[in-house]
């Protein structure tokens, strides 16, 4: 029985960030984590590994998803596996998207693994059986064990329990069951437990995906003060505020000359741990586009470019920390009478 397993350039042993543009290619046996899966699943299964650079996927998402689905069709795959991606943003996005493509186009069951805080989990948990993993790849063996055990059940078409029983993140599928006690009793029991500080299990977990009502410009753009905010981690060389490369909890406000036509590579660097820093280190304007905004300022398209940019590193940021950072930066922007923001993300 054939399994197609999608992994990125790093787990494919090709290289790190510098190889993130590696195009999609297929290997006719199990590579990296796929080999781990193979060892757990045994000889009944043979593997095709799909290896793709994280940047390549995110620049060509439809083409890669289509090609991976086509390969599954060609190989008559009984199962599709992706990752596990742990807390990686780009890799998680790729794994989620290819699982969704295989599920939608071919109806082949897809298994993956992600950390509960992975920002793309909510987008894709309905399209695949995604198992909880640790934040970092140190948890690879445990992740593969969970994924493999479930793979066996899926392929054997064994009856499956609830998401909680099987261990994957809920997919939003509801099946009717008859409860022993009526709803009124269950609700009161839950309330009593909650009031007494005892554990209880909600029957309807609310996943909060934030819908932010759009702000609208309050004056013509030609009169607006525009500021740049970035999560690309650009800081003055030397990182004076010691902002962390992963899971940053601090942000910095960095003033630049009001007359400066551009930002110079010699004065800035990026400390963001999640992308190839070479381009931004040579030319900071790629992530804090002072040069472009200065041009529009001189043309009168915008009122003025605020001579301070606000920066943190976005990679590995817990949602609750990002909310706090965002609120604090918003406060600083309001104090500075900024009317509009260009926020760059990497």
């Amino acid at each position, binding site marked *: 029985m054939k399994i197609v397993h999608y992994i990125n350039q790093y787990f494919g042993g090709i290289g790190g960030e510098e190889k*993130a543009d590696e195009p999609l290619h297929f290997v006719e046996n199990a590579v990296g984590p796929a080999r781990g899966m193979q060892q757990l699943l045994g000889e009944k299964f043979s593997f095709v590994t799909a290896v793709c650079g994280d*940047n390549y996927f*995110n*620049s060509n998402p439809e083409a890669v998803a289509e090609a991976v689905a086509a390969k599954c069709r060609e190989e008559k795959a009984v199962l599709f596996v992706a990752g596990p991606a742990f807390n990686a*943003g*780009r890799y998680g*996005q790729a794994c989620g998207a290819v699982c969704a493509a295989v599920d939608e186009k071919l109806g082949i069951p897809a298994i993956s693994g992600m950390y509960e805080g992975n*920002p*793309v989990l*909510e*987008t894709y948990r309905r399209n695949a059986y995604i198992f909880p993993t640790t934040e970092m790849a140190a948890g690879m063996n445990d992740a593969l064990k969970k994924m493999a055990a479930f793979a066996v059940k899926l392929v054997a078409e064994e009856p499956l329990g609830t998401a909680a029983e099987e261990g994957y993140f809920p997919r939003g599928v509801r099946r009717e069951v008859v409860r022993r006690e009526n709803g009124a009793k269950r609700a009161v029991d839950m309330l009593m437990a909650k009031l007494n500080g005892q554990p209880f299990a909600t029957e309807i977990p609310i996943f909060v*995906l*934030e*819908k*932010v009502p*759009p*702000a*609208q*410009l309050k004056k013509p*753009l030609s009169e607006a003060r525009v500021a740049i905010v970035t999560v*690309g981690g650009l800081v003055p060389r030397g990182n004076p505020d010691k902002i962390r490369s992963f899971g940053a909890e601090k942000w910095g406000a960095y003033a630049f000359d009001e007359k400066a036509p551009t930002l110079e590579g010699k004065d800035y660097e990026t400390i963001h741990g999640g*992308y*190839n*820093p*070479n*381009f*931004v280190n*040579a*030319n900071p*304007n*790629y*992530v804090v*586009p002072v*040069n*472009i*905004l200065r*041009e*529009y300022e001189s043309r009168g*398209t*915008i009122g003025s470019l605020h001579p301070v940019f606000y920066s943190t590193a976005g990679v590995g940021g817990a*949602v609750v920390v990002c909310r706090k950072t965002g609120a604090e930066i918003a406060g600083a922007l309001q104090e500075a009478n900024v009317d*509009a923001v*260009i*926020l*760059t*993300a*990497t």
Partner: protein
Amino acid sequence: MTTLAKNVGANRIVAGTKIPHPCGDPTVSPKRDREIGMLLLEKSFQLLQKQVQTPEIVQAV
């Protein structure tokens, strides 16, 4: 990563060139590189001035 931006609450999204250099392209001529940056910001300004009601994602180039 624009889908992710939309899902976490961003309302005006312009797709950047590429993750390591969202506001330009170091692999093309300096003139084209700057042109790309100008186009991205132009699209951004259009979105800023628009009364959006639901999240919008646009391609600049």
